[in-house]
């Protein structure tokens, strides 16, 4: 006891102006960010900056594109080339960026609503064409920014501002959708799997072609509290219990149920190779 006390007295912190390593890629003057306590977005950003750092991608070669939403605000925090596009249009913007600047490493970082409601059509066509980009979807099962409306990934039966009696629609299963549309890399993790997310991002960023990483992430403000998931920390703990890692499994079996105890499949579903949009276009046009 006394030695313990003594130790506590001995170790004292020094005050410094050091910053979190992620801030190397961020506009520090915009921090602290606006996201709520326990929102999963900030750690998804750190996983991404860690992945850039690990892969040693020069900051000038990175383009981060978002649409609108809480997730969409991410682009505004990046000190890389970054574009905060209109709602749903992150992917077409990113496509243009890639075509005009083929050396650029293009990342789309956006929400379930932005990418799969208003922007759903762009997603399937970029995947079909195999445009070389990494799409990260932070899926918090709702439109967080506008007050918690249900959207295309809200589980059946879940409560949202616009489904006070429970959502009766059938949601998209994002890994299945991405795989069916032609993505060459598809993975899903949750916010509690921060390191796995980083690894998946490293893999996705390294692949040539259309890669997709889904992150199941807490939005305690818009979704968690209304749906028996509690605060962010409760949701993360439930993901520790609920998730089962099944690499290479059929993404068709990766549906998400509202029941906070129902199993959720995570892991890498697809890792494939096929010519990218630019490869095909170059080949074809050379033959003309």
């Amino acid at each position, binding site marked *: 006891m006394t030695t313990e006390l003594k130790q506590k007295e001995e170790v004292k912190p020094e005050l410094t102006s050091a910053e*979190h390593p992620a801030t190397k890629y961020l506009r520090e003057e915009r921090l602290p960010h606006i996201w709520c*306590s326990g929102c999963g977005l900030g750690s998804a950003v750190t996983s991404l900056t860690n992945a850039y750092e690990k892969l040693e991608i020069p900051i000038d070669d990175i383009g981060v594109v978002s649409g609108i939403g809480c997730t969409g605000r991410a682009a505004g925090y990046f000190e890389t080339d970054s574009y905060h596009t209109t709602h749903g249009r992150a992917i077409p913007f990113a496509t243009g960026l890639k075509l005009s600047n083929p050396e650029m490493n293009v990342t789309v970082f956006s929400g379930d609503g932005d990418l799969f409601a208003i922007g759903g059509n762009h997603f399937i066509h970029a995947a079909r064409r195999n445009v070389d980009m990494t799409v990260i979807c932070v899926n918090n099962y709702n439109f967080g920014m506008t007050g918690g409306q249900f959207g295309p990934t809200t589980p059946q039966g879940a409560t949202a501002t616009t489904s006070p009696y429970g959502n009766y629609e059938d949601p998209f299963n994002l890994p299945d959708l991405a795989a069916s549309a032609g993505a060459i890399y598809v993975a899903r993790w949750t916010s509690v799997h921060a390191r796995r997310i980083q690894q998946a991002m490293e893999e996705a960023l390294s692949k040539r072609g259309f890669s997709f990483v889904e992150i199941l992430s807490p939005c305690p403000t818009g979704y968690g509290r209304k749906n028996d998931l509690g605060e962010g920390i409760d949701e993360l703990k439930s993901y520790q219990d609920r998730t089962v890692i099944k690499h290479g499994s059929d993404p068709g079996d990766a549906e998400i149920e509202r029941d906070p105890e129902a199993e959720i499949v995570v892991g890498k579903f697809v890792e494939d190779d096929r010519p990218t949009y630019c490869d095909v276009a170059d080949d074809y046009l050379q033959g003309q």
Partner: protein
Amino acid sequence: MSTEIEKEKTTEKWPTDQGYLYIREDYCKGCGYCIEFCPQEVLEESEGFNEKGYHPPEPTAIDKCVNCGFCSIICPDFAIWDEKEGSNE
């Protein structure tokens, strides 16, 4: 003649076995992730409040920190991170 404004020293730098643990209290939003998911149980919620009204984490067993970096990646608010001696992370 530097025009750069000197940054405020708001970050606590704690010495660990293999390096340092940093806590920037004013960024913390009290989600508790670092405390809950630190594999070494280094942290506890402090009694004090930061200016946002949250209780930032406090290392109550800093000698157990192994600089695994998990707090750094799970913290959504860039408020806690580590540095291994000899690395420039």
